[in-house]
Protein backbone atom coordinates (compact mmCIF):
# COMPACT_ATOMS: atom_id res chain seq x y z
CA UNK A 1 0.00 0.00 0.00
CA UNK A 2 1.20 3.53 -0.79
CA UNK A 3 0.79 5.60 2.38
CA UNK A 4 1.19 9.36 2.62
CA UNK A 5 1.93 10.76 6.07
CA UNK A 6 1.44 14.45 6.78
CA UNK A 7 3.46 15.86 9.65
CA UNK A 8 5.98 13.06 9.17
CA UNK A 9 8.93 14.97 10.65
CA UNK A 10 7.36 15.07 14.10
CA UNK A 11 8.54 12.48 16.61
CA UNK A 12 5.43 10.36 16.32
CA UNK A 13 5.30 10.86 12.53
CA UNK A 14 8.82 9.55 12.09
CA UNK A 15 8.06 6.49 14.15
CA UNK A 16 4.87 5.77 12.22
CA UNK A 17 6.78 6.17 8.94
CA UNK A 18 9.49 3.78 10.08
CA UNK A 19 6.91 1.30 11.32
CA UNK A 20 4.83 1.31 8.13
CA UNK A 21 8.00 1.15 6.02
CA UNK A 22 9.15 -1.81 8.06
CA UNK A 23 5.76 -3.47 7.48
CA UNK A 24 6.56 -3.39 3.77
CA UNK A 25 4.47 -0.41 2.69
CA UNK A 26 5.58 2.43 0.48
CA UNK A 27 5.77 5.58 2.62
CA UNK A 28 5.67 9.16 1.38
CA UNK A 29 5.95 12.07 3.79
CA UNK A 30 4.94 15.71 3.70
CA UNK A 31 6.12 18.19 6.31
CA UNK A 32 7.29 21.79 6.55
CA UNK A 33 9.91 20.69 9.02
CA UNK A 34 12.89 18.78 7.66
CA UNK A 35 13.71 15.13 8.31
CA UNK A 36 17.15 14.89 6.77
CA UNK A 37 17.68 11.17 7.36
CA UNK A 38 14.55 9.14 6.71
CA UNK A 39 15.01 5.39 6.19
CA UNK A 40 16.08 4.44 2.68
CA UNK A 41 12.97 4.08 0.54
CA UNK A 42 10.87 6.63 2.47
CA UNK A 43 10.18 9.68 0.27
CA UNK A 44 10.23 13.00 2.10
CA UNK A 45 8.70 16.14 0.59
CA UNK A 46 9.65 19.30 2.43
CA UNK A 47 6.48 21.26 1.60
CA UNK A 48 3.66 23.04 3.43
CA UNK A 49 0.46 21.01 3.42
CA UNK A 50 -1.71 24.03 2.50
CA UNK A 51 0.44 25.06 -0.46
CA UNK A 52 0.43 24.07 -4.10
CA UNK A 53 3.53 21.79 -3.95
CA UNK A 54 1.74 19.55 -1.45
CA UNK A 55 -1.15 19.10 -3.82
CA UNK A 56 1.40 18.14 -6.49
CA UNK A 57 2.60 15.33 -4.25
CA UNK A 58 -0.97 14.00 -4.09
CA UNK A 59 -1.45 14.37 -7.84
CA UNK A 60 1.80 12.78 -8.94
CA UNK A 61 2.28 10.14 -6.25
CA UNK A 62 -1.40 9.09 -5.92
CA UNK A 63 -1.34 7.56 -2.40
CA UNK A 64 -3.82 4.83 -1.45
CA UNK A 65 -4.05 5.95 2.14
CA UNK A 66 -3.26 9.07 4.15
CA UNK A 67 -2.32 9.35 7.80
CA UNK A 68 -2.93 12.95 8.79
CA UNK A 69 -0.74 13.84 11.74
CA UNK A 70 0.11 17.46 10.92
CA UNK A 71 -1.51 19.02 13.98
CA UNK A 72 0.23 21.19 16.55
CA UNK A 73 -0.46 22.30 20.14
CA UNK A 74 0.01 25.45 22.18
CA UNK A 75 3.37 24.18 23.39
CA UNK A 76 4.99 24.84 20.03
CA UNK A 77 2.83 27.21 18.04
CA UNK A 78 0.99 30.54 18.38
CA UNK A 79 -2.81 30.68 18.19
CA UNK A 80 -3.40 32.08 14.67
CA UNK A 81 -0.80 29.74 13.20
CA UNK A 82 -2.42 26.80 15.00
CA UNK A 83 -5.74 27.50 13.30
CA UNK A 84 -4.03 27.63 9.89
CA UNK A 85 -2.21 24.37 10.44
CA UNK A 86 -4.80 22.37 12.36
CA UNK A 87 -8.10 23.38 10.80
CA UNK A 88 -7.20 24.66 7.34
CA UNK A 89 -4.51 22.01 6.95
CA UNK A 90 -7.06 19.28 7.74
CA UNK A 91 -9.48 20.74 5.24
CA UNK A 92 -6.76 20.83 2.57
CA UNK A 93 -5.84 17.20 3.20
CA UNK A 94 -9.41 15.99 2.83
CA UNK A 95 -9.89 18.09 -0.30
CA UNK A 96 -6.80 16.54 -1.90
CA UNK A 97 -7.86 13.05 -0.80
CA UNK A 98 -11.25 13.50 -2.40
CA UNK A 99 -9.80 15.00 -5.55
CA UNK A 100 -7.05 12.44 -6.11
CA UNK A 101 -8.93 9.27 -5.22
CA UNK A 102 -7.41 8.39 -1.85
CA UNK A 103 -9.30 5.38 -0.51
CA UNK A 104 -8.57 5.71 3.18
CA UNK A 105 -7.76 8.54 5.63
CA UNK A 106 -6.71 8.32 9.23
CA UNK A 107 -6.89 11.50 11.31
CA UNK A 108 -4.72 11.30 14.41
CA UNK A 109 -6.40 13.49 17.02
CA UNK A 110 -6.20 13.86 20.77
CA UNK A 111 -8.34 12.78 23.71
CA UNK A 112 -8.03 16.28 25.20
CA UNK A 113 -10.82 17.42 22.87
CA UNK A 114 -13.31 15.91 25.37
CA UNK A 115 -12.25 18.55 27.84
CA UNK A 116 -12.12 18.45 31.62
CA UNK A 117 -14.58 19.94 34.12
CA UNK A 118 -15.83 19.09 37.64
CA UNK A 119 -18.69 17.08 36.16
CA UNK A 120 -16.80 15.29 33.40
CA UNK A 121 -17.29 11.53 33.70
CA UNK A 122 -14.42 9.07 33.68
CA UNK A 123 -14.12 6.72 30.70
CA UNK A 124 -15.85 8.95 28.15
CA UNK A 125 -16.85 7.12 25.01
CA UNK A 126 -16.97 8.31 21.43
CA UNK A 127 -20.61 9.43 21.77
CA UNK A 128 -19.71 12.23 24.17
CA UNK A 129 -19.49 15.62 22.44
CA UNK A 130 -16.01 17.14 22.43
CA UNK A 131 -16.53 19.82 25.06
CA UNK A 132 -12.87 20.80 25.36
CA UNK A 133 -13.29 24.40 24.27
CA UNK A 134 -15.77 25.18 27.05
CA UNK A 135 -12.98 25.12 29.64
CA UNK A 136 -9.88 25.44 27.50
CA UNK A 137 -10.26 28.03 24.68
CA UNK A 138 -6.80 27.27 23.26
CA UNK A 139 -8.14 23.87 22.14
CA UNK A 140 -10.60 25.40 19.68
CA UNK A 141 -8.43 24.69 16.65
CA UNK A 142 -7.87 21.04 17.59
CA UNK A 143 -11.52 20.44 18.43
CA UNK A 144 -12.67 21.96 15.14
CA UNK A 145 -10.11 19.92 13.20
CA UNK A 146 -11.33 16.76 14.95
CA UNK A 147 -14.97 17.51 14.15
CA UNK A 148 -14.12 18.54 10.60
CA UNK A 149 -12.27 15.27 10.03
CA UNK A 150 -15.20 13.29 11.44
CA UNK A 151 -17.58 15.13 9.13
CA UNK A 152 -15.66 13.68 6.17
CA UNK A 153 -17.22 10.33 7.11
CA UNK A 154 -20.52 11.51 5.63
CA UNK A 155 -19.21 14.14 3.20
CA UNK A 156 -16.98 11.70 1.34
CA UNK A 157 -18.64 8.30 1.78
CA UNK A 158 -16.27 6.71 -0.74
CA UNK A 159 -13.26 7.46 1.50
CA UNK A 160 -12.85 5.24 4.56
CA UNK A 161 -12.25 7.87 7.22
CA UNK A 162 -11.29 7.13 10.80
CA UNK A 163 -10.68 9.69 13.55
CA UNK A 164 -8.43 8.44 16.34
CA UNK A 165 -8.50 10.25 19.65
CA UNK A 166 -5.24 9.23 21.24
CA UNK A 167 -4.54 9.74 24.91
CA UNK A 168 -1.24 11.36 25.94
CA UNK A 169 1.86 9.58 24.69
CA UNK A 170 4.98 9.24 26.78
CA UNK A 171 8.33 7.66 26.07
CA UNK A 172 12.00 8.07 25.23
CA UNK A 173 11.44 10.72 22.54
CA UNK A 174 10.43 13.20 25.27
CA UNK A 175 8.01 14.87 22.86
CA UNK A 176 4.30 15.46 23.01
CA UNK A 177 1.90 17.43 25.17
CA UNK A 178 2.38 15.42 28.36
CA UNK A 179 6.17 15.29 27.93
CA UNK A 180 6.27 19.05 27.53
CA UNK A 181 4.27 19.43 30.73
CA UNK A 182 6.49 16.97 32.62
CA UNK A 183 9.66 18.30 31.05
CA UNK A 184 11.28 20.14 33.94
CA UNK A 185 12.49 18.70 37.26
CA UNK A 186 9.60 20.39 39.06
CA UNK A 187 6.06 19.97 37.77
CA UNK A 188 3.35 22.46 38.79
CA UNK A 189 -0.01 21.06 39.90
CA UNK A 190 -3.06 22.69 41.43
CA UNK A 191 -3.16 22.33 45.21
CA UNK A 192 -5.97 20.06 46.36
CA UNK A 193 -6.56 18.37 43.01
CA UNK A 194 -5.07 15.18 41.65
CA UNK A 195 -6.87 13.87 38.55
CA UNK A 196 -6.35 10.57 36.81
CA UNK A 197 -4.05 10.90 33.79
CA UNK A 198 -4.29 8.51 30.89
CA UNK A 199 -1.16 7.92 28.85
CA UNK A 200 0.37 5.32 26.58
CA UNK A 201 3.87 4.43 25.43
CA UNK A 202 4.69 6.14 22.13
CA UNK A 203 5.52 2.78 20.54
CA UNK A 204 2.03 1.59 21.47
CA UNK A 205 0.64 4.73 19.84
CA UNK A 206 2.59 3.98 16.66
CA UNK A 207 1.35 0.39 16.71
CA UNK A 208 -2.25 1.55 17.28
CA UNK A 209 -2.06 3.97 14.34
CA UNK A 210 -0.66 1.27 12.05
CA UNK A 211 -3.26 -1.21 13.24
CA UNK A 212 -6.06 1.31 12.70
CA UNK A 213 -4.94 1.91 9.11
CA UNK A 214 -4.57 -1.76 8.25
CA UNK A 215 -7.92 -2.60 9.91
CA UNK A 216 -9.55 -0.13 7.49
CA UNK A 217 -11.57 1.49 10.25
CA UNK A 218 -14.36 3.93 9.61
CA UNK A 219 -15.65 6.11 12.43
CA UNK A 220 -14.38 7.78 15.59
CA UNK A 221 -12.27 5.79 18.03
CA UNK A 222 -10.69 6.49 21.40
CA UNK A 223 -7.23 4.98 21.76
CA UNK A 224 -5.61 4.52 25.16
CA UNK A 225 -3.01 2.42 26.91
CA UNK A 226 -2.70 1.03 30.43
CA UNK A 227 -4.89 2.00 33.39
CA UNK A 228 -4.78 5.72 34.18
CA UNK A 229 -2.80 6.93 37.19
CA UNK A 230 -3.26 9.96 39.43
CA UNK A 231 -1.12 12.88 38.28
CA UNK A 232 0.87 12.91 41.53
CA UNK A 233 1.79 9.25 41.05
CA UNK A 234 2.78 9.89 37.44
CA UNK A 235 5.00 12.80 38.46
CA UNK A 236 6.69 10.72 41.14
CA UNK A 237 7.12 7.73 38.81
CA UNK A 238 8.85 9.90 36.20
CA UNK A 239 11.31 11.13 38.82
CA UNK A 240 9.93 14.65 38.95
CA UNK A 241 8.98 16.75 41.96
CA UNK A 242 5.34 17.70 42.37
CA UNK A 243 4.92 21.40 43.21
CA UNK A 244 1.28 21.98 44.22
CA UNK A 245 0.37 25.65 43.79
CA UNK A 246 -2.78 27.31 45.18
CA UNK A 247 -5.07 27.88 42.24
CA UNK A 248 -5.06 31.73 42.31
CA UNK A 249 -1.25 31.72 42.02
CA UNK A 250 -1.17 29.16 39.24
CA UNK A 251 -1.48 31.47 36.19
CA UNK A 252 1.25 33.79 37.55
CA UNK A 253 3.74 30.98 38.06
CA UNK A 254 3.39 29.56 34.54
CA UNK A 255 6.40 30.27 32.36
CA UNK A 256 8.35 31.38 35.44
CA UNK A 257 10.54 29.52 37.95
CA UNK A 258 11.32 26.87 35.34
CA UNK A 259 7.66 25.89 35.02
CA UNK A 260 6.21 25.23 31.56
CA UNK A 261 4.17 27.97 29.92
CA UNK A 262 0.53 26.92 29.87
CA UNK A 263 -2.31 28.81 28.19
CA UNK A 264 -5.49 30.01 29.86
CA UNK A 265 -7.70 27.12 30.87
CA UNK A 266 -4.90 24.55 30.91
CA UNK A 267 -5.27 24.22 34.67
CA UNK A 268 -8.66 22.57 34.14
CA UNK A 269 -6.76 19.68 32.54
CA UNK A 270 -4.56 19.52 35.64
CA UNK A 271 -7.51 19.67 38.05
CA UNK A 272 -9.93 17.25 36.45
CA UNK A 273 -9.41 13.98 34.60
CA UNK A 274 -9.76 13.26 30.89
CA UNK A 275 -10.11 9.51 30.75
CA UNK A 276 -11.50 7.80 27.67
CA UNK A 277 -13.08 4.42 27.10
CA UNK A 278 -11.16 2.64 24.33
CA UNK A 279 -13.12 -0.62 24.28
CA UNK A 280 -14.58 0.01 20.82
CA UNK A 281 -11.12 0.42 19.32
CA UNK A 282 -9.77 -2.65 21.09
CA UNK A 283 -12.70 -4.71 19.86
CA UNK A 284 -12.46 -3.44 16.27
CA UNK A 285 -8.72 -3.96 15.91
CA UNK A 286 -7.67 -6.45 18.58
CA UNK A 287 -5.23 -3.83 19.90
CA UNK A 288 -3.47 -4.45 23.19
CA UNK A 289 -0.77 -2.29 24.70
CA UNK A 290 2.71 -3.79 24.89
CA UNK A 291 4.01 -1.46 27.59
CA UNK A 292 2.67 -1.14 31.12
CA UNK A 293 2.27 2.17 32.95
CA UNK A 294 5.43 1.37 34.87
CA UNK A 295 7.50 0.67 31.76
CA UNK A 296 6.16 3.79 30.07
CA UNK A 297 6.98 6.15 32.93
CA UNK A 298 10.42 4.57 33.37
CA UNK A 299 11.13 4.83 29.62
CA UNK A 300 10.41 8.54 29.87
CA UNK A 301 12.36 8.96 33.06
CA UNK A 302 15.57 7.26 31.93
CA UNK A 303 15.85 8.59 28.39
Amino acid sequence: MKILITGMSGQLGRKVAEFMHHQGHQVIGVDRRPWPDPPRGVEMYNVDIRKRPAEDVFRTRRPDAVIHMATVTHFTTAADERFRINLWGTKAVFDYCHQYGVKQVLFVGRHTCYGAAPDTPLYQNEDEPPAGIATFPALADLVSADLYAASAIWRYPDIKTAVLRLCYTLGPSMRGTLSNYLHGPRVPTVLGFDPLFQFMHEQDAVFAIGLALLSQLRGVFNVAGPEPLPLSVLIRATGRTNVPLPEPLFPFAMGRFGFPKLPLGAEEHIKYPIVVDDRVFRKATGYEEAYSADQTTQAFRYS
Partner: protein
Amino acid sequence: MSFLIYDDVAERVERLDIPFNLYGYDSFGVSKQYLKYFYSMLTFFYRHYLTVTVEGIENVPDQGRCMVVGNHSGGIALDGGMVVNSMLLEREQPRLVHGMADKFLNSIPFTSVWLNRVGQLTGLPEHALQLLEADRVLMVFPEGARGTAKLYKEQFSLVRFGTGFVRLALQTRSPIVPFAFIGGGDAIPTIRNFKALGHLLGVPYVPITPYILPLPRPAVHCHIVYDKPMIFEGTGSEEDDIIEGYVEQVKSKIADLIERGRKTRDTTVAIRMGRKIETDEEGRA
Protein backbone atom coordinates in the same frame (compact mmCIF):
# COMPACT_ATOMS: atom_id res chain seq x y z
CA MET B 1 0.98 8.77 60.20
CA SER B 2 0.03 5.15 60.69
CA PHE B 3 -1.19 5.87 64.22
CA LEU B 4 -4.24 7.29 62.45
CA ILE B 5 -5.04 3.87 61.02
CA TYR B 6 -6.82 1.17 63.01
CA ASP B 7 -5.12 -2.21 62.51
CA ASP B 8 -8.33 -4.14 62.05
CA VAL B 9 -9.55 -1.56 59.52
CA ALA B 10 -6.31 -1.83 57.54
CA GLU B 11 -6.58 -5.60 57.57
CA ARG B 12 -10.15 -5.40 56.22
CA VAL B 13 -9.14 -2.92 53.50
CA GLU B 14 -6.52 -5.45 52.38
CA ARG B 15 -9.29 -8.04 52.04
CA LEU B 16 -11.45 -5.87 49.75
CA ASP B 17 -12.23 -7.49 46.45
CA ILE B 18 -10.87 -4.62 44.32
CA PRO B 19 -8.25 -5.01 41.57
CA PHE B 20 -5.55 -2.60 42.74
CA ASN B 21 -2.60 -2.07 40.39
CA LEU B 22 1.12 -1.93 41.11
CA TYR B 23 0.77 1.58 42.48
CA GLY B 24 -2.15 0.71 44.79
CA TYR B 25 -4.88 2.30 42.68
CA ASP B 26 -7.80 0.79 40.80
CA SER B 27 -9.11 1.90 37.42
CA PHE B 28 -11.40 4.51 39.04
CA GLY B 29 -8.54 6.04 40.97
CA VAL B 30 -9.44 4.44 44.33
CA SER B 31 -6.34 4.23 46.52
CA LYS B 32 -5.74 1.51 49.08
CA GLN B 33 -3.76 3.86 51.31
CA TYR B 34 -6.41 6.60 51.23
CA LEU B 35 -9.06 3.97 52.03
CA LYS B 36 -7.22 3.00 55.22
CA TYR B 37 -7.22 6.59 56.48
CA PHE B 38 -10.77 7.21 55.33
CA TYR B 39 -12.23 4.08 56.95
CA SER B 40 -10.25 4.67 60.14
CA MET B 41 -11.74 8.14 60.43
CA LEU B 42 -15.21 6.76 59.79
CA THR B 43 -14.59 3.96 62.27
CA PHE B 44 -13.81 6.47 65.00
CA PHE B 45 -17.20 8.09 64.42
CA TYR B 46 -18.87 4.73 63.96
CA ARG B 47 -17.61 3.17 67.20
CA HIS B 48 -16.83 5.99 69.57
CA TYR B 49 -18.44 9.27 68.63
CA LEU B 50 -21.76 7.90 67.50
CA THR B 51 -22.58 4.29 68.06
CA VAL B 52 -23.88 2.38 65.11
CA THR B 53 -25.53 -1.00 65.05
CA VAL B 54 -26.67 -2.93 61.99
CA GLU B 55 -29.00 -5.75 61.16
CA GLY B 56 -29.48 -7.74 57.98
CA ILE B 57 -26.16 -6.76 56.41
CA GLU B 58 -25.79 -10.32 55.07
CA ASN B 59 -28.45 -9.39 52.52
CA VAL B 60 -25.76 -7.65 50.48
CA PRO B 61 -24.13 -10.28 48.23
CA ASP B 62 -20.45 -11.14 48.81
CA GLN B 63 -19.58 -10.45 45.22
CA GLY B 64 -21.07 -9.00 42.08
CA ARG B 65 -22.91 -5.79 41.40
CA CYS B 66 -25.51 -4.50 43.79
CA MET B 67 -27.28 -1.27 44.67
CA VAL B 68 -27.96 -0.34 48.27
CA VAL B 69 -30.80 2.14 48.39
CA GLY B 70 -31.98 4.02 51.43
CA ASN B 71 -33.25 7.13 53.13
CA HIS B 72 -31.28 10.31 53.65
CA SER B 73 -31.39 12.52 56.73
CA GLY B 74 -29.27 14.85 58.82
CA GLY B 75 -27.95 17.90 57.02
CA ILE B 76 -24.69 16.49 55.72
CA ALA B 77 -24.30 12.99 54.32
CA LEU B 78 -23.27 11.42 57.62
CA ASP B 79 -25.60 8.48 56.98
CA GLY B 80 -23.73 7.70 53.76
CA GLY B 81 -20.42 7.51 55.58
CA MET B 82 -21.82 5.17 58.22
CA VAL B 83 -23.38 2.87 55.60
CA VAL B 84 -20.06 2.76 53.71
CA ASN B 85 -18.28 1.89 56.95
CA SER B 86 -20.77 -0.75 58.04
CA MET B 87 -20.07 -2.66 54.83
CA LEU B 88 -16.39 -2.79 55.69
CA LEU B 89 -16.62 -3.58 59.40
CA GLU B 90 -19.68 -5.72 59.87
CA ARG B 91 -19.31 -8.28 57.12
CA GLU B 92 -17.35 -11.50 56.74
CA GLN B 93 -16.32 -10.36 53.24
CA PRO B 94 -15.88 -6.58 53.41
CA ARG B 95 -17.13 -4.60 50.43
CA LEU B 96 -16.23 -1.17 49.13
CA VAL B 97 -19.36 0.93 48.75
CA HIS B 98 -19.30 3.66 46.12
CA GLY B 99 -21.49 6.66 46.82
CA MET B 100 -22.37 9.35 44.35
CA ALA B 101 -21.00 12.68 45.56
CA ASP B 102 -22.70 15.94 44.75
CA LYS B 103 -21.12 17.67 41.76
CA PHE B 104 -20.09 20.82 43.61
CA LEU B 105 -17.85 18.75 45.92
CA ASN B 106 -15.53 17.87 43.05
CA SER B 107 -14.62 21.51 42.52
CA ILE B 108 -13.50 22.04 46.14
CA PRO B 109 -9.75 21.55 46.67
CA PHE B 110 -8.75 18.48 48.75
CA THR B 111 -12.39 17.34 48.95
CA SER B 112 -12.05 16.55 45.26
CA VAL B 113 -8.96 14.40 45.81
CA TRP B 114 -10.29 12.60 48.88
CA LEU B 115 -13.66 11.72 47.43
CA ASN B 116 -12.11 10.34 44.25
CA ARG B 117 -9.45 8.33 46.09
CA VAL B 118 -12.00 6.61 48.33
CA GLY B 119 -14.40 5.71 45.55
CA GLN B 120 -17.01 8.41 46.17
CA LEU B 121 -17.12 9.58 42.55
CA THR B 122 -19.06 12.54 41.21
CA GLY B 123 -22.75 11.68 40.96
CA LEU B 124 -23.11 11.13 37.22
CA PRO B 125 -25.19 8.46 35.48
CA GLU B 126 -22.06 7.41 33.57
CA HIS B 127 -20.21 6.71 36.80
CA ALA B 128 -23.10 4.74 38.28
CA LEU B 129 -23.24 2.59 35.16
CA GLN B 130 -19.48 2.06 35.00
CA LEU B 131 -19.29 1.06 38.68
CA LEU B 132 -22.12 -1.47 38.40
CA GLU B 133 -20.63 -2.90 35.22
CA ALA B 134 -17.39 -3.33 37.17
CA ASP B 135 -19.40 -5.40 39.73
CA ARG B 136 -19.10 -2.88 42.54
CA VAL B 137 -21.60 -1.91 45.25
CA LEU B 138 -23.33 1.38 44.54
CA MET B 139 -25.02 3.35 47.33
CA VAL B 140 -27.97 5.43 46.20
CA PHE B 141 -30.06 7.94 48.09
CA PRO B 142 -32.95 8.51 45.69
CA GLU B 143 -34.05 11.55 47.71
CA GLY B 144 -30.76 13.28 46.89
CA ALA B 145 -30.11 16.69 48.43
CA ARG B 146 -33.85 16.97 49.15
CA GLY B 147 -33.27 14.16 51.67
CA THR B 148 -30.41 15.70 53.61
CA ALA B 149 -32.39 18.96 53.73
CA LYS B 150 -35.00 17.33 56.00
CA LEU B 151 -35.49 19.14 59.28
CA TYR B 152 -35.15 17.40 62.65
CA LYS B 153 -38.88 16.91 63.00
CA GLU B 154 -39.12 15.43 59.49
CA GLN B 155 -36.26 13.00 59.85
CA PHE B 156 -38.30 9.80 59.62
CA SER B 157 -40.34 10.91 56.63
CA LEU B 158 -39.46 10.27 53.01
CA VAL B 159 -39.53 12.94 50.33
CA ARG B 160 -39.88 12.41 46.58
CA PHE B 161 -37.70 9.63 45.15
CA GLY B 162 -35.87 10.04 41.87
CA THR B 163 -36.57 7.25 39.40
CA GLY B 164 -33.17 6.94 37.69
CA PHE B 165 -31.94 4.30 40.13
CA VAL B 166 -34.62 1.77 39.14
CA ARG B 167 -33.89 2.24 35.43
CA LEU B 168 -30.22 1.75 36.18
CA ALA B 169 -30.90 -1.40 38.20
CA LEU B 170 -33.00 -2.84 35.37
CA GLN B 171 -30.48 -1.87 32.73
CA THR B 172 -27.56 -3.44 34.58
CA ARG B 173 -29.59 -6.29 36.15
CA SER B 174 -28.48 -5.25 39.61
CA PRO B 175 -30.31 -6.36 42.75
CA ILE B 176 -31.54 -3.51 44.98
CA VAL B 177 -30.87 -3.98 48.69
CA PRO B 178 -33.10 -1.52 50.57
CA PHE B 179 -31.92 -0.09 53.86
CA ALA B 180 -33.10 2.37 56.48
CA PHE B 181 -30.76 4.62 58.41
CA ILE B 182 -32.09 5.71 61.78
CA GLY B 183 -30.52 8.55 63.72
CA GLY B 184 -29.15 10.90 61.05
CA GLY B 185 -31.59 13.59 62.12
CA ASP B 186 -30.75 13.04 65.79
CA ALA B 187 -27.02 13.32 65.13
CA ILE B 188 -27.38 16.55 63.15
CA PRO B 189 -30.69 18.13 64.18
CA THR B 190 -31.33 20.69 61.46
CA ILE B 191 -33.69 23.45 62.47
CA ARG B 192 -33.35 25.50 59.33
CA ASN B 193 -31.62 25.46 55.97
CA PHE B 194 -30.09 28.65 54.61
CA LYS B 195 -30.25 28.52 50.86
CA ALA B 196 -28.95 32.05 50.15
CA LEU B 197 -25.88 31.51 52.34
CA GLY B 198 -25.32 28.20 50.61
CA HIS B 199 -25.49 29.91 47.26
CA LEU B 200 -22.74 32.30 48.36
CA LEU B 201 -20.55 29.40 49.46
CA GLY B 202 -21.30 27.38 46.33
CA VAL B 203 -23.24 24.62 48.13
CA PRO B 204 -26.96 23.80 47.80
CA TYR B 205 -27.82 25.02 51.34
CA VAL B 206 -26.28 25.45 54.79
CA PRO B 207 -28.07 23.51 57.57
CA ILE B 208 -28.30 25.28 60.92
CA THR B 209 -28.63 23.36 64.20
CA PRO B 210 -29.53 24.68 67.69
CA TYR B 211 -25.76 24.93 68.26
CA ILE B 212 -25.37 26.67 64.84
CA LEU B 213 -22.83 24.41 63.09
CA PRO B 214 -24.02 21.26 61.27
CA LEU B 215 -21.70 18.96 63.21
CA PRO B 216 -22.86 15.61 64.59
CA ARG B 217 -23.75 15.47 68.29
CA PRO B 218 -21.75 12.91 70.28
CA ALA B 219 -23.12 9.63 71.65
CA VAL B 220 -26.11 9.47 69.34
CA HIS B 221 -27.13 5.94 68.64
CA CYS B 222 -27.74 5.10 64.98
CA HIS B 223 -29.14 1.93 63.54
CA ILE B 224 -29.03 0.56 60.00
CA VAL B 225 -31.49 -2.08 58.81
CA TYR B 226 -30.80 -3.88 55.55
CA ASP B 227 -33.44 -6.06 53.98
CA LYS B 228 -33.64 -8.76 51.32
CA PRO B 229 -32.55 -7.85 47.77
CA MET B 230 -35.39 -6.70 45.51
CA ILE B 231 -34.98 -7.85 41.92
CA PHE B 232 -37.07 -6.30 39.16
CA GLU B 233 -37.30 -7.69 35.65
CA GLY B 234 -36.99 -5.37 32.67
CA THR B 235 -34.68 -3.46 30.40
CA GLY B 236 -34.71 0.02 31.95
CA SER B 237 -36.53 1.57 28.98
CA GLU B 238 -40.04 0.94 30.34
CA GLU B 239 -42.61 3.68 30.51
CA ASP B 240 -42.61 6.05 33.46
CA ASP B 241 -45.67 4.62 35.22
CA ILE B 242 -44.15 1.13 35.31
CA ILE B 243 -40.87 2.49 36.67
CA GLU B 244 -42.73 4.62 39.20
CA GLY B 245 -44.50 1.49 40.40
CA TYR B 246 -41.15 -0.15 41.13
CA VAL B 247 -39.89 3.03 42.79
CA GLU B 248 -43.01 3.04 44.98
CA GLN B 249 -42.32 -0.55 46.04
CA VAL B 250 -38.78 0.36 47.09
CA LYS B 251 -39.98 3.50 48.84
CA SER B 252 -42.66 1.74 50.87
CA LYS B 253 -40.18 -1.00 51.75
CA ILE B 254 -37.78 1.63 53.09
CA ALA B 255 -40.65 3.29 55.00
CA ASP B 256 -41.36 -0.08 56.67
CA LEU B 257 -37.69 -0.54 57.47
CA ILE B 258 -37.59 2.91 59.09
CA GLU B 259 -40.47 1.91 61.40
CA ARG B 260 -38.76 -1.39 62.23
CA GLY B 261 -35.41 0.30 62.80
CA ARG B 262 -36.87 2.95 65.08
CA LYS B 263 -38.37 0.32 67.40
CA THR B 264 -35.10 -1.63 67.55
CA ARG B 265 -33.09 1.48 68.20
CA ASP B 266 -35.39 2.85 70.86
CA THR B 267 -35.21 -0.42 72.74
CA THR B 268 -31.40 -0.42 72.49
CA VAL B 269 -31.20 3.16 73.69
CA ALA B 270 -33.56 2.45 76.57
CA ILE B 271 -31.46 -0.50 77.71
CA ARG B 272 -28.25 1.47 77.35
CA MET B 273 -29.62 4.35 79.44
CA GLY B 274 -30.51 1.93 82.22
CA ARG B 275 -34.19 2.66 81.91
CA LYS B 276 -36.68 0.06 82.84
CA ILE B 277 -40.11 -0.13 81.38
CA GLU B 278 -42.65 -0.40 84.20
CA THR B 279 -44.99 -3.27 83.60
CA ASP B 280 -48.06 -4.48 85.40
CA GLU B 281 -48.61 -8.03 86.64
CA GLU B 282 -49.45 -9.27 83.16
CA GLY B 283 -46.22 -7.86 81.75
CA ARG B 284 -47.84 -4.99 79.89
CA ALA B 285 -46.51 -1.50 79.88
